[in-house]
């Protein structure tokens, strides 16, 4: 299509008729400031070409000039396939349309009203535009690619017919005639089973196979359950079988034990019976034995009793005789004992004569001891007296001696040194003036006044400080001065030192430290002596005091005096203690010997009497006992013989008992022989066999219990008919599996068909889009350089991204700058336009585009637009005409200057 001219009246801001044209076949630029109607022109052209004139609605109402009831009117002149047409449309009020064709130098009506709309769409190959509604961009046909409204330069999608047209224009058929419908059917079929991503559909419209697979999973689970039930049935049957086997085996083993058990039981019973009989015979034997022994004992006892009776009678007679003899002896012995007791007592009375002599010996010993103690005490008192006298003397000497201590001596030495140092310094500070006159004279010092008479040739010295002035008679005065020193302070120091020394040494009478030290040593020596004497006193005294010692002396003297009072001879001659003691011992020995002899005689006599008395008593007791025993023996004899049997009869009875005993013993031996034949007690073997038998029966019972239990379970499972259910389930499962297989085959086939078609289509698209991509890529490289790489188009011929050479994957368009994006879209449109204009020039409309493109790239784009002008008619709507001034062959239209003549300004 080529646009020749355009006239718009009553359209938005274009109130008055505005006509633009005639347009150049190449480049055209319509420019005007914002808000003056550039985009309205473009809009009016699109509505007129693509909308029906009877279009209604808010959007068409909006094109009516504001506040006016004016019907929008548009006239467009264009050429299509070499034929020139004019379309005139009035919208809204009195809407009408008229299509005219240029014939023989003039426009001749071709169609009007709806026919004009239809015919126009047919001419422009726009078949899918709406009837009364506004057309959308997808209804514009090729203009979708070639016309870029304001702010819509990008290409996001194209209608399938346009894509097909493009493919046709590119000489490649993707689906061919009727292929679109087939493609739609395939897609519809595919989407009824799969999602676009190729997964089976889920949810409400899920693919049937999902339900079948779900059912299969459930049935598989059910089959597993039934299979387990079937296996349980077989296991239960096996369990019953096993239990029966166990029970039968236990029964067999129990049966095998039965015969030995019966035999052993019999043997055990025999054994027990024999044992019982044996025991009985033993008891009989014992009884017989006891009878035999009892009779024997009775005979023996009777004999004994008789013997005892005889013995006791004889004993009584003997004792009675002995008692008479002992009574006489008892009388004689008593009299002898009395005589000897009297003699003993007399001997004992002589012991009293020894007491006086013993007391004298004791006094003599005491006297001698006291005398000796009195002498020792006197010696001690004398020594004590001597030491105390020496102690008193030394103590007095020490009291008289005054001596300094060590500290005082050290202080004296310190103050002496200080005074010496002060005096030395004082002497050094004085001015010493020595005068030796040739003749005798008198020298007078003024202050302090001192007058010295000096002989000829004699030295006279004056000292003072800080000066010394003297008047020498006959000579005059001499004044000597020295350095100023503090002589007074030094003198004070000397004086102070003297005071301290005087205070320290005043008690001792000397300031000589050596003498003071000597005094100190004398005092120390005295102290040591005093301490030594003190120690000696304490040693003599011990723990006693002087009063104690004196008290002891008094006591000793008193006892000595008392004894000499009783024994006056001891005053002259102290007693001989040993003589006294010997006399005492000799007398005592004599008396004690007599006493012992008398006592022995008495004891002997008394013992003899007591022995007789004892024998008498014993004899009396023996007589009594013999009488009692006799009585008891007679009693026993009476008891033993109460059977009134004769002794011979008893002997006969004992013989019979002996014979019975022997018989019973022989019978017991017979039973013992029989038991020995059986051997050990079979009871143990019997018990063992019983236990084994019982164990087998328990095993059998347990097996029977298991069998019953398993049978019960088996019956329960049998009633289930597990196999029948399993069979039915497996049949359903097989049927379902087959249906799934078929459905899967159907789906796999559909997927294969879909994927194969998609792959063929992708290959075709790749082949179709490649030339466009190459042209567009070359253009982009000329504008933006090679950095952006290759433009990639979708099968709908819209840019999908770019493929920089340095990268392996395509880059999405969002990653490009705004300027680069608009350049890429414009270039794609130009590239597609060139292919679409292969057979016929095509109109390109660019409404206010390239606003984000910099000047350099804009210049290169303008070059591309100029080159494209060979195939494309381009109409640029802009408010920046200066940006397009570089287009040398472009026609410029200033919208404000437009008049009915079109206002072209080349």
């Amino acid at each position: 299509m080529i646009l020749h001219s355009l006239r718009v009246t009553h359209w938005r801001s274009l109130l008055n008729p505005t006509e633009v044209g005639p347009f150049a076949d190449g480049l055209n630029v319509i420019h005007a400031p914002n808000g003056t109607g550039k985009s309205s022109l473009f809009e009016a052209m699109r509505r007129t070409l693509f909308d029906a004139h009877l279009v209604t609605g808010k959007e068409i109402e909006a094109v009516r000039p504001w506040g006016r009831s004016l019907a929008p009117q548009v006239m467009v002149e264009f050429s299509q396939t070499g034929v020139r047409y004019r379309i005139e449309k009035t919208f809204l009020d009195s809407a009408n349309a008229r299509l005219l064709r240029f014939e023989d130098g003039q426009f001749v009506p071709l169609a009007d009203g709806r026919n004009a709309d239809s015919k126009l769409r047919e001419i422009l190959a726009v078949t899918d535009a709406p009837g009364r509604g506004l057309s959308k961009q997808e209804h514009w046909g090729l203009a979708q690619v070639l016309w870029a409204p304001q702010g819509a330069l990008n290409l996001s999608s194209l209608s399938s017919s346009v894509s097909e047209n493009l493919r046709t224009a590119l000489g490649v058929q993707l689906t061919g005639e009727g292929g679109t419908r087939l493609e739609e059917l395939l897609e519809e079929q595919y989407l009824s089973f799969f999602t676009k991503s190729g997964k089976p559909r889920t949810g409400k419209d899920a693919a049937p196979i999902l339900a079948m697979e779900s059912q299969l999973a459930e049935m598989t689970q059910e089959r597993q359950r039934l299979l387990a039930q079937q296996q349980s049935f077989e296991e239960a049957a096996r369990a019953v079988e096993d239990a029966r086997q166990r029970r039968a085996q236990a029964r067999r083993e129990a049966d095998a034990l039965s015969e030995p058990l019966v035999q052993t039981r019999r043997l055990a019973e025999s054994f027990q019976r024999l044992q019982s009989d044996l025991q009985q015979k033993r008891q009989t034997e014992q009884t017989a034995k006891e009878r035999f022994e009892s009779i024997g004992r009775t005979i023996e006892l009777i004999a004994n009793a008789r013997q005892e009776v005889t013995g006791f009678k004889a004993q009584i007679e003997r004792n009675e005789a002995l008692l008479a003899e002992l009574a006489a002896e008892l009388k004689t012995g008593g009299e002898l004992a009395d005589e000897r007791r009297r003699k003993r007592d007399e001997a004992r009375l002589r012991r009293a004569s020894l007491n006086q002599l013993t007391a004298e010996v004791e006094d003599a010993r005491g006297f001698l001891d006291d005398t000796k103690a009195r002498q020792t005490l006197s010696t001690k008192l004398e020594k004590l007296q001597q030491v105390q006298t020496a102690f008193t003397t030394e103590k007095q000497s020490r009291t008289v001696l005054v001596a300094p201590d060590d500290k005082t001596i050290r202080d004296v030495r310190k103050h002496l040194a200080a005074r010496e140092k002060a005096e030395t310094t004082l002497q050094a500070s004085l001015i010493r003036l020595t005068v030796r006159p040739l003749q005798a004279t008198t020298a007078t010092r003024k202050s302090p006044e001192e007058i010295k008479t000096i002989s000829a040739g004699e030295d006279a010295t004056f000292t003072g400080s800080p000066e010394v002035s003297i008047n020498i008679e006959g000579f005059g005065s001499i004044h000597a001065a020295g350095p100023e020193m503090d002589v007074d302070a030094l003198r004070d120091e000397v004086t102070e030192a003297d005071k301290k020394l005087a205070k320290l040494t005043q008690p001792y009478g000397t300031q000589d430290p050596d003498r003071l030290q000597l005094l100190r040593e004398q005092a120390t020596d005295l102290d040591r002596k005093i301490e030594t004497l003190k120690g000696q006193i304490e040693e003599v005294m011990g723990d006693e005091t002087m009063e104690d010692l004196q008290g002891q002396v008094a006591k000793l003297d008193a006892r000595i005096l008392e004894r000499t009072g009783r024994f006056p001879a001891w005053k002259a001659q102290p007693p001989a203690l040993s003589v006294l003691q010997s006399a005492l011992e000799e007398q005592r020995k004599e008396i004690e010997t007599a006493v012992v002899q008398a006592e022995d005689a008495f004891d002997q006599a008394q013992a003899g009497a007591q022995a007789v008395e004892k024998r008498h008593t014993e004899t009396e007791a023996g007589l009594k006992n013999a009488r009692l025993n006799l009585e008891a023996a007679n009693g026993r004899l009476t008891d033993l013989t109460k059977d009134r049997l004769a002794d011979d009869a008893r002997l006969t009875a004992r013989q019979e008992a002996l014979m019975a005993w022997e018989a019973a013993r022989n019978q017991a031996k017979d039973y013992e022989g029989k038991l020995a034949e059986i051997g050990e007690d079979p009871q143990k073997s019997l018990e063992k066999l019983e236990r084994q038998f019982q164990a087998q029966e328990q095993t059998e019972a347990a097996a029977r219990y298991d069998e019953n239990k398993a049978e019960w379970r088996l019956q329960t499972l049998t009633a289930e008919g597990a196999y029948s259910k399993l069979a039915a389930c497996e049949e359903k499962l097989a049927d379902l599996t087959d249906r799934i297989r078929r459905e899967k085959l159907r789906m796999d086939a559909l997927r294969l068909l879909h994927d194969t078609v998609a792959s063929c289509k992708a290959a075709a698209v790749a082949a179709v889009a490649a030339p466009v991509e190459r042209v567009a890529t070359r253009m982009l490289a000329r504008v933006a350089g090679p950095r952006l790489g290759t433009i990639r188009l979708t099968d709908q011929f819209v840019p999908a991204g770019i493929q920089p050479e340095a990268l392996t994957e395509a880059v999405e368009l969002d990653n490009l700058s705004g300027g680069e994006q608009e350049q890429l879209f414009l270039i794609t449109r130009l590239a597609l336009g060139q292919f679409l204009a292969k057979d016929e020039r095509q109109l390109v409309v660019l409404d206010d585009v390239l606003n984000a493109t910099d000047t350099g790239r804009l210049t290169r784009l303008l070059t591309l637009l100029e080159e494209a002008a060979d195939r494309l008619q381009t109409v640029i709507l802009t408010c920046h005409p200066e940006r397009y001034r570089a287009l040398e062959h472009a026609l410029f239209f200033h919208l404000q200057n437009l008049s009915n003549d079109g206002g072209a300004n080349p």
Partner: protein
Amino acid sequence: MTFLHTADWQMGMRAESVGKMAERVREERLAAAQRVVQAARDHNAEMLLLTGDVFEDNAVDRLLVRKVGEVLRRFPGPVYVISGNHDPLSPGSVWEHSVWKEAGNITVFTKNEPLELNTCVLFPCPLREKYSSKDPTAWINAHDATKPAIALAHGNVEGIPSGEPDYPIPRDAATRRGLDYLALGHWHSFARYDDPNGECRMAYSGTHETTKFGERDSGNTILVEISRRGAPPTLTSIRTGGLDWRTIEHSVAQLSSLESLVQQLTEIAQPGSTLIRMHLDGILFPEDRDALKRLDEILTSRFLFGALEATGLTPAPDGEGWIESLPAGTFRDAAQKLRALASQSSGTDQQAVASQALLQLFDLYERSRA
């Protein structure tokens, strides 16, 4: 004497290959049992011998056991039964059901003990386990029998390939044991074992009703006649099966050959009791697509059961005129690819999928043109 020998009723067996018709197939086995009893009556059989596997499993529904017992009860003569490897005499077996005692004419043998009857001596060999390597007839010694000696056994006659020995029975078992006739069960097809003299003294009756597709000589019972001890038995096969199991395998090599199959199906007389499994392979010509559809329709609608397996068909490598008529471009390219895929991978799953995909494309193409 005359008696009927039958075996392997396999009552309650699963029929996985017939889809939803499995229950019907099971019911038909019971009906066939009734026909066996009726045949025995019709031929005045003195007794009925069932040589094992009367039931498919010991865990079948007990109601079914009773039904079978009731069927046998209707026979006026005695019925002698041994257990087989499918229904061995084990705890919980079908033979513990009360119906066998309730029916006075039925004897279920539980021991290897001969039973002397008025006209013959029976040597039963009931099985107690599913598997065994022992000859179940080994215990028989009928050489001294004065009456016809007839044994009932279940197992594999030596020579039948069955892997490990499983209840093996010598080929000359009847002669070796001194039997006049050895009634066998286990194999579902009728089979007789003639001795060197050409006399048949042992035979499998086969199942009374076919159990699956491809089963040869099944659905029969045998009427046995023995005139006296030592005389060769006369065996007569009697049809008792009610279902017709057919497997049709056809390789398409020529155009329109499917039409003959359509014709063949329409000529089957008893479609209501016929089960058909059809396998097709070879070449699928575009012109045969309609016939293929009709085959499928007839199989699924006319017969008791019908299944068509046509995945083995490969689209014709050339002559696919409809492909050339597809819109030039993507679809035509895709169709050619699918055709090549189907041809190159013959017999594989991929071939089946590719063929199916091509068929689907054809359908879509037809719809797009409608």
